[in-house]
């Protein structure tokens, strides 16, 4: 049902949804049971003429069971939840399947910059394809990402992948994903990061190998023409007047 509202576009999206469901069911059933009990007891033992209120210590076994039995069931269910959660945690956060590609994601107030290593597969080389607020990946390939923040805390959130990773400045976060569905999905920032946090969105395009190659070639051409301006003077936009 969740995928009806939000497509599952990564290999682990289903595991996350399953976990969300397990939690929703366990907590949901308890919520209903407890509320029904609560209101039923209030109704059943409401004030009646000629019936005095009774003082109950709750020491008798049959009364204590009202606490003990649910308590024990909850403990068992808790263990179940923890096992389910750890299983998903290990699968997604503790295991890094070997990468087909590695991309760099840089967060800053208020944009996402994506660096695809280009044909040579190495980041920070001249053939890198860098884009702002638009990320292109190939379907059914495992990606490692290196996530960094330039300024404040941000959070890299791809709802369709069921992926969310905080990024604090000064640290490189590694993670992975494997897109399983082609299409265009949203990327957003999930950590309040300043005045334009709400519009710190980006586009994720998951495409087939052919489409991805075509995109890469188009961008490699762009990069070459943009390089015409690379001969610009080096003391840049951040020229400090004081040092002039």
């Amino acid at each position, binding site marked *: 049902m969740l995928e009806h509202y939000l497509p599952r576009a990564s290999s682990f999206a289903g595991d996350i949804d399953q976990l969300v469901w397990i939690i929703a069911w366990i907590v949901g059933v308890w919520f209903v049971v407890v509320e029904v009990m609560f209101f039923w007891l209030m109704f059943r033992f409401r004030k009646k003429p000629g019936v005095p209120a009774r003082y109950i210590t709750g020491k008798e076994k049959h009364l204590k069971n009202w606490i003990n039995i649910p308590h024990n069931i909850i403990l068992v269910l808790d263990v179940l939840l923890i096992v389910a959660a750890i299983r998903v945690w290990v699968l997604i956060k503790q295991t890094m399947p070997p990468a087909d590609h590695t991309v760099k994601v840089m967060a*800053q*107030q*208020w*944009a996402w*910059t994506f*660096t695809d290593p280009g044909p040579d597969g190495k980041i920070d080389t001249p053939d890198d394809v*860098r*884009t*702002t*607020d638009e990320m292109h990946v190939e379907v059914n390939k495992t990606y490692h990402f290196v996530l960094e923040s330039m300024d404040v805390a941000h959070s890299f959130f791809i709802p369709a992948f069921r992926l969310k990773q905080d990024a604090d400045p000064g640290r490189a976060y590694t993670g992975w994903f494997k897109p399983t569905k082609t299409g265009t999905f949203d990327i957003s920032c999930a950590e309040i990061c300043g*005045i*334009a946090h*709400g*519009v*710190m969105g980006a586009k994720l395009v998951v495409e087939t190998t052919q489409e991805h190659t075509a995109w890469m070639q188009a961008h490699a051409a762009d990069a070459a*023409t*943009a390089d*015409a*301006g*690379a001969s*610009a*003077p*080096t*003391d*840049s*936009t*951040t*020229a400090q*007047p004081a040092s*002039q």
Partner: protein
Amino acid sequence: MLQRAYAGLIAAAVISAFLASCSATPKTGIAHGEELFQNCKPCHGEAGHGNLELRTPAIAGLPDWYIIEQVTKFKGDLRGANPDDMEGHRMRPLARTLYHPGDIENVAAYVSKMPSQWMPPTFTKGDTAAGSVTFNGVCITCHMADGKGNKDLHSPPIAQQSDWYLVAQLNKFHRGWRGYSPEDVYGGQMRAMALTLADSTAMHNVIAYVKTLPH
């Protein structure tokens, strides 16, 4: 009884607040622009005179057509979209927040009516004599002798602007962060002009001269 009276009072307050919010007509024109300008203040300053620390230019008193053009360019990724353009990355999302029809025009109308201020020079380096040659040879055609720009040529006034910002923009044109797209005709024209400036020294010179123009 008292409890009932209280409950009634609260209900009446909630209902009338709700009705009031329904009937309040949204502001239009410059009044709406003034509201929108609240979002610009944190960076461009209360009076719209910019802030060196945040690398924001003075915008108060810029012509409305120029503000509209630039905000539209930020919004349409024609400016501020290069992965290395730090200042552009801060302004661009703000342009995206102006998405209702009329937002950009209204805020531009308000900002253009704000009193502009001549920003004193901050650079001490810069050969004004050499800069004068460049300015009166090249830039004058579009930015005019007084540096006040020309609407027909879509060239903005630059005489009043902070020198550090102007040099930064010349760099951005030079690097192809501004005026790089064939869609951006006037930006492209300015880019060609920036490419005639050989280096950082030439940029500082011409801007040092711009700051000597009468105000």
